[in-house]
């Protein structure tokens, strides 16, 4: 098989040379066209592949911090009576040690941890770390472009993310603590600096950080959209693009249309916070004192927030869906089933994501008749989602799957997406939502469907494209251990939460042991906490694998180790800035010709044979 692949690769080079086109990349200069020294190459790099790695590693560091926070508050929930004084070296004054030497987590810091966990994982890990990484890596490579439309803006996109990261990280060390009003930052908790400790400087930094973050997303998004529409290589029609690119493309459009709305919401919030306006603040008393604010509407903020907030969950999940589709097709050695249906589903999900936001607000006092509208569109999202699930399963069905870490995580994604998606149908009904809202049922739903599932898609992507990023493979054994540990672990954490939620256990509470109603859940909470710790351990294993493999992993010896059809595998193993050393490849077919013409796979650079027709 290896020899066959090598033969195909030589043919790739020949085809690119023969049929590709010359964009005069090397016309004026020779050698390193970008004249980069170390700093320009690895730090202030404009190479999309380096920027992708920067996004990935920054995202991974944030994932460790965000997940670590969840362990601390899980300890509190699972073992409320145990002493946490051993955490004092890490958390300092947030662990209050009494005379008996028993350390307890400060309740206000518990809220800060929950808030930061949400903010970090949603924005910094699953938006920047996922879509930032793979959009950057794959859009130019899979489209046959030298780089993004504007490498400078692309670099700025990363550095704005970095700046946002610094500000948020700094806020963790404030003496008043980081923002603690929930990741949605609803007013009045977010609008009144005196509302709580974290609402002061913590909130100011939170909002500043997120504004930088939105700038980063906007710069990235402009680049992704422009690159997809303008810089596709010869022959790369929209209908020949891999599903990864379709997903990143629609994700970028969603981000460009929804994040600005969040900025507007923040703008009004900032005026309320520091200039004395009353956009969101109504008659409020603090400590018996009436504030000057009159006539504002906190619901207005919720509308603006969720107009971003809902598309945001698709900004998170669509890239994972794209990665899954691609990884499944490659490792099942089969064309993706229903390519066009997949594309139309992505578009439909993208469109519908803009008209369902108020399903987050059924309990905020929106008019029940308006709620009907949002219920219907929310339930309709199940249709394109189900189409996608059907197509993934059909792709796997009767295929010759190569079971490796990448494909297993892709299959795991499908499992998670089904489990989490089904509970979405419950919650999308405003009637059931009245019972379920703000319980652990909601926590279980969104963690499985957009947290764990998105991570699975990301892991599939990391294991699959690691050879392209670093020229080495990740360790398969550790990868498979990581998969089984995470799959079983994640279900162990979140499956029991459904039962907690159905019994009415509210989310965001500091402890439950003093509620008689919930006391019989004590052991279940312990179980969840232990499962969380074990699952976290498997993520550490993945970290070890990742960094070990960068330097010591098995070297990639052929350009196309997976036998994939897409263009990124026609570039040299250690690919320089500019991606293709000579001409740019021309594309002659769609991205999923597996098992066609009696070949195992037919790369996109291979011209159509006489009488051959396109498959879709």
């Amino acid at each position, binding site marked *: 098989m290896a020899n066959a692949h090598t033969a195909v690769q030589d043919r790739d080079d020949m085809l690119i040379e023969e049929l590709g*086109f010359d964009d005069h990349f090397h016309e004026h200069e020779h050698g390193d066209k*970008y004249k980069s020294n170390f700093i320009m190459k690895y730090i202030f790099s404009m190479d999309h592949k380096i920027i992708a790695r920067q996004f990935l590693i920054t995202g991974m560091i944030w994932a460790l911090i965000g997940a670590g926070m969840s362990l601390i508050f899980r300890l509190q929930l699972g073992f409320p009576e145990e002493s946490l004084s051993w955490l004092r070296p890490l958390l300092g004054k947030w662990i209050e040690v009494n005379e008996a030497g028993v350390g307890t987590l400060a309740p206000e810091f518990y809220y800060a941890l929950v808030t930061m966990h949400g903010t970090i994982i949603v924005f910094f890990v699953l938006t920047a770390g996922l879509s930032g990484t793979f959009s950057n890596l794959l859009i130019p490579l899979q489209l046959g472009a030298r780089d993004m439309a504007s490498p400078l803006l692309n670099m700025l996109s990363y550095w704005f993310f970095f700046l946002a990261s610094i500000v948020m990280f700094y806020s963790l060390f404030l003496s008043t603590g980081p923002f603690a009003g929930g990741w949605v930052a609803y007013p009045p908790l977010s609008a009144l600096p005196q509302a709580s400790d974290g609402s002061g400087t913590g909130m100011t930094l939170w909002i500043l950080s997120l504004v930088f973050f939105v700038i980063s997303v906007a710069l990235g998004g402009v680049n992704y959209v422009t690159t997809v529409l303008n810089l596709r290589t010869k022959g790369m029609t929209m209908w020949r693009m891999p599903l990864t690119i379709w997903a990143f493309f629609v994700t970028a459009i969603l981000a460009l*249309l929804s994040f*600005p709305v969040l900025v507007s919401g923040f703008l009004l919030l900032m005026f309320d916070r520091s200039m004395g306006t009353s956009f969101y603040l109504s008659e409020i008393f603090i400590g018996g004192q009436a504030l000057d604010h009159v006539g504002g509407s906190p619901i207005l903020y919720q509308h603006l927030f969720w107009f971003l907030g809902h598309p945001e969950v698709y900004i998170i999940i669509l890239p994972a869906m794209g990665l899954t589709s691609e990884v499944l097709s490659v490792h099942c050695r089969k064309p993706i089933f229903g390519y066009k249906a997949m594309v139309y589903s992505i578009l439909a999900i993208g469109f519908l994501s803009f008209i369902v936001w108020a399903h987050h607000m059924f309990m905020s006092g929106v008019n029940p008749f308006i709620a009907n509208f949002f219920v219907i569109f929310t339930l309709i999202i199940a249709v394109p989602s189900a189409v996608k699930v059907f197509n993934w399963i059909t792709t796997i069905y009767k295929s010759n799957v190569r079971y490796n870490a990448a494909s297993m995580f892709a299959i795991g994604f499908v499992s998670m997406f089904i489990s989490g998606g089904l509970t979405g149908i419950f919650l999308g009904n405003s009637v059931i939502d009245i019972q379920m809202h703000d319980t652990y049922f909601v926590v279980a739903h969104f963690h499985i469907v957009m947290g764990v599932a998105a991570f699975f898609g990301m892991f599939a992507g990391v294991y699959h494209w690691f050879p392209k990023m670093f020229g080495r493979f990740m360790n398969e054994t550790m990868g498979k251990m990581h998969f089984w540990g995470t799959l079983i672990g994640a279900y162990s954490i979140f499956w029991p939460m459904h039962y907690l939620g159905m019994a009415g256990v509210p989310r965001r509470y500091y402890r439950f042991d003093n509620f008689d109603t919930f006391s019989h859940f004590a052991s279940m909470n312990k179980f969840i906490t232990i499962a969380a710790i074990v699952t976290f351990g498997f993520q550490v294993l993945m970290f070890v694998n990742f960094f070990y493999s960068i330097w010591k992993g098995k070297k990639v010896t052929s350009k196309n180790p997976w036998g994939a059809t897409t263009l990124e595998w026609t570039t040299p193993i250690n690919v320089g800035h500019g991606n293709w050393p000579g001409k740019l490849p021309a594309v002659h077919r769609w991205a999923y010709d597996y098992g066609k013409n009696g070949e195992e796979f037919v790369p996109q650079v291979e011209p159509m044979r006489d009488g051959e027709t396109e498959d879709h």
Partner: protein
Amino acid sequence: MDLTIQENTGRNKIHPWKFAVWVGCGSILMMFASLTSAYVVRQAAGNWLEFQLPSIFKLSTLVILLSSGTLHASFIAFKNGKEKQYKALLVITYLLAILFFVFQYQGWVALSDNGIPFTLNPSGDFIYVISWFHAAHVVGGLAALTVALIHAYGLDFKVTTKRKLRFELTLTYWHFVDFLWVYLFIFLSFYR
């Protein structure tokens, strides 16, 4: 920078950077669309002072419309190699842009003098915040115009593809902030 742009694929009717500016404008438009929808939603909730928009804003609208015209004329003159006309129109545009800020400032003062100071009522605050936020985006356009001005007087006059593109990017953005203000002005005038 421009090394990575492939201009010879033959399919691109529009330069990628110009397209990128359009996409960016679309994104900014969403920001203002959401502010005006917030305005509508908030107004429906009551406790809303009713008053007329100061007429000085009509003048600023006229000025920014005019500046769009002069900048466009300057661009055409540049393309046709008419150096004098190009420079003169560019300077006029710049002055009109500054005049726009002056009129906006007077508008805010007039609003306050008319008994609608900042923080009195959301109906006034929305006007302040939206027009400030718009002005902040015009500052970006002014920065681009400043660069254009420096190029006009600092560089030898030469019509190159690169300079044409640069000018076009500035022009596109300037037209955009102009259009944006016209939209906001009409909205704020009639949606009282």
